[in-house]
């Protein structure tokens, strides 16, 4: 590229052995991007509700289908995982949690917590729906 300086390159992904903390960092970004497009699901649902009962029923039917529910479960997991990852970043922002044990523990808590809370969420939804 014209005018580009010869900057030193930092080592990238292929250099490193995959680690849990590294995977959590990557998944945080992937879930962020997924949620970016997932917000559309909420807005489509809201616009349908504002349009007409028929439009709302169509969207509700789509979301209630097995593939729709699969997407919603994935969306809720991404939201919870990204939220827990965000809390981890808040802890790091205070300067705490950078030690080998703490960061490993928090990485496990993020993945375990997100899966556990997603299951809990859908049990609650299932109970409310009856």
């Amino acid at each position, binding site marked *: 590229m014209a005018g*580009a300086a010869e900057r030193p390159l930092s080592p990238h992904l292929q250099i490193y052995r995959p680690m849990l903390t590294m995977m959590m960092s990557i998944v945080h970004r992937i879930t962020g991007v997924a949620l970016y497009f997932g*917000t*559309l699901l909420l*807005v489509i649902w*809201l*616009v349908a*509700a*504002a349009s007409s009962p028929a439009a709302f029923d169509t969207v509700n039917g789509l979301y209630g289908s097995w593939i729709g529910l699969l997407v919603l479960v994935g969306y809720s997991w991404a939201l919870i995982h990204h939220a827990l990852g965000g809390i981890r970043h808040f802890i790091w922002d205070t300067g705490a949690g950078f030690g080998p044990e703490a960061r490993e523990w928090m990485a496990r808590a993020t993945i375990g917590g997100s899966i556990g809370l997603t299951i809990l969420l859908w049990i609650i939804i299932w109970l*409310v729906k009856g």
Partner: protein
Amino acid sequence: MSTSSGSTSMRTPRRRVAGLGSARSGTGHFWLQRVTALSNLILVVICLPIVIGMAGQGHAGVVATLGNPLVAIALLLLLLSVCMHMRIGMQVVIEDYVHAEGAKVLALIANSFFTIAVGFAGAFAILKISFGG
């Protein structure tokens, strides 16, 4: 490593002529990402029970729930907070992976268009329902 010049400067000649260094907007975005992350967290916790309550309800039930001003305000705040967070978050992703100048600028513009359009569409829908439409 440096073969073209003896200088240790990381700035390109063009940057040096144009007097451009750091964009000086990095910390602003960093802070806004944290603030909106906190508001996202608070608002999701508030809105989650509302959304769960609406699960499986028909159109009339959902419209009645969204007709409550407190529900509408909470959802509007969530949407605003989420869309701001989405916009600067995606901007970081684009700046990390899209290096061609033209594609990067177009992607950044598309990011602004998308997040603002999504936010306004959602806000309009909430307001229309809440105002009784």
